[in-house]
């Protein structure tokens, strides 16, 4: 029985390691970026990068190989398609590909290595006055990013993680309607961290449709979203309705604390096939206590009830230390937990990422998890390598 469970759990791990929406570098707090709106079209980060964000990619993210005198500027390396296409001011766009290979190892299965295509996305935003239209479109292997799929037939599997219309009501307030990532916790790149998957707030494919308001002014930032469900999922009874939101305060240029809250109700939960109410409430922090080091942490209470039964309580959390050895090379260690009725699962991550060329990075992860089962904890090991390139 244990072998069966382990084998299927490995399948699940594989699923969780499929596509990833990239470019959500919460460790930028180390460079004094406590918010994301200047670098990303989505004010909470992730996804399409603005012209300013592209420039920052050259300025402080990638390893500088060239001499950078006082006259140095990012130049065409930061432009879309390296400047081959001259974009009008009203349009920002980008394409990104992320792929690699993973090796899984568990006590009951032979180690296996398999390739993964995580991203093959085109994203764009058109701005007309105060109105913005944002969309992403990608093609992936069948079975990947199912939740974001818009079309599948025998030859193609198209998906759109995000598409929304927004209005910049003021310079501080943006109201959007459409499909977008939920405002909850730290928007980390490790989308399969338990803190993301157990709250269904990862930036891979957990986006939902709804109406979202983001306010950022001075040291405060708040975002709330009324969730209408994933409209790409049918029948409608599977869709979750509710809210998700966060509020954050920058205590200083390198310390942000925040709180998040989420509640959703589905007539028929996609996992349990029951009427289900999910709640998550927690705290998050991003800080850089010393130069080069970024600490990202969050902890959440999980409240789950099905068919009106008494709620069961759980919790999850993630804490990561990211150290930039020299500009462009990051090493990180992270710990995580997921406490559910079956027990408490524990995980540890070791990662290295090198932004070694313009718009290009190489990342290697080692993930060890002690997965709670009814018969105790079972270990799993994964090594994941990936190459990420964007235009």
């Amino acid at each position, binding site marked *: 029985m244990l072998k*069966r469970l382990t084998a299927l759990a490995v*399948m699940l791990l*594989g699923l969780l390691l*499929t596509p990833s929406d990239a470019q959500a570098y919460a460790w930028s707090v180390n460079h004094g970026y406590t918010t994301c709106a200047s670098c990303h079209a989505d004010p909470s980060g992730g996804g399409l990068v603005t012209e300013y964000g592209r420039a920052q990619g050259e300025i402080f993210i990638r390893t500088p190989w060239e001499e950078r005198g006082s006259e140095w500027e990012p130049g065409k390396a930061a432009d879309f398609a390296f400047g081959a296409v001259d974009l009008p001011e009203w349009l920002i766009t980008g394409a990104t590909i992320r792929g690699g290979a993973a090796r899984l190892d568990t006590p009951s*299965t032979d180690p296996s290595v398999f390739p993964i*295509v995580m991203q093959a996305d085109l994203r764009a935003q058109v701005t007309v006055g105060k109105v913005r239209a944002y969309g992403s479109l990608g093609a992936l*292997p069948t079975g990947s990013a199912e939740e974001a799929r818009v079309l599948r037939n025998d030859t193609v599997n198209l998906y759109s993680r995000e598409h929304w219309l927004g209005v910049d009501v003021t310079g501080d307030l943006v109201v959007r309607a459409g499909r977008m990532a939920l405002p909850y916790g730290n928007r980390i790149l490790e989308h399969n961290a338990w803190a993301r998957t157990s709250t269904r707030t990862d930036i891979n494919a957990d986006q939902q449709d709804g109406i979202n308001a983001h306010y950022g002014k001075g040291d405060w930032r708040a975002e709330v979203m009324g969730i209408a469900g994933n409209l790409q999922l049918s029948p409608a009874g599977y869709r979750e309705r509710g809210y998700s939101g966060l509020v954050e305060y920058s205590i200083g240029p390198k310390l942000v604390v925040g709180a998040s809250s989420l509640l959703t109700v589905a007539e028929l939960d996609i996992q349990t*096939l029951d009427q289900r109410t999910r709640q998550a409430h927690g705290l998050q922090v991003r800080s850089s206590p010393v130069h080069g080091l970024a600490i990202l942490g969050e902890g959440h209470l999980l409240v789950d009830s099905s068919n009106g039964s008494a709620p069961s309580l759980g919790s999850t959390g993630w804490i990561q230390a990211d150290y930039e050895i020299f500009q462009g090379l990051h090493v990180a260690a992270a710990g995580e937990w997921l406490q559910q009725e079956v027990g408490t699962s524990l995980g540890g991550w070791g990662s290295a990422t090198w932004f070694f060329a313009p718009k290009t990075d190489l990342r290697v992860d080692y993930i060890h998890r002690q997965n709670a089962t009814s018969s105790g904890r079972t270990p799993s090991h994964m090594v994941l390598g990936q190459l990420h390139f964007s235009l």
Partner: protein
Amino acid sequence: MLWILSGAALASGSYPGVVAQELTVDSPSCAVCHDGATTFGTVTTPFGASLLDAGLEASNEDSLIAALATLESEGTDSDGDGVGDIDELLDGTDPNGTGSEVEAPAYGCVGSTRPGGPLAGATLLAMLAGVLLRRRG
């Protein structure tokens, strides 16, 4: 870059998609194999167990395809309702017998290019691509 794209056909972290492709159905719900949350230790459904018994291995799509074929050839009926598992998947019912009346979840448009709805984003992107190409011309 080509090797990354060509790797798409070999990706094994996509078992629901493999089922969908093999049977030409929508990707099945997580609940077909998982009882409760899709986390470690919850694969306890009768259908999931049948797949394992039929030789399913981790990260091995061929084993999944073979296991599905085995279930089909043997007419495995995990929930004992008189309809084989594969037939239930083809019919869009639950091979675990807990919700045969429940329509299976589906994402996006399958096998068609139905206008509107979820394709709005795709349409937007196609328009933008057109603008870009025109500028280059």
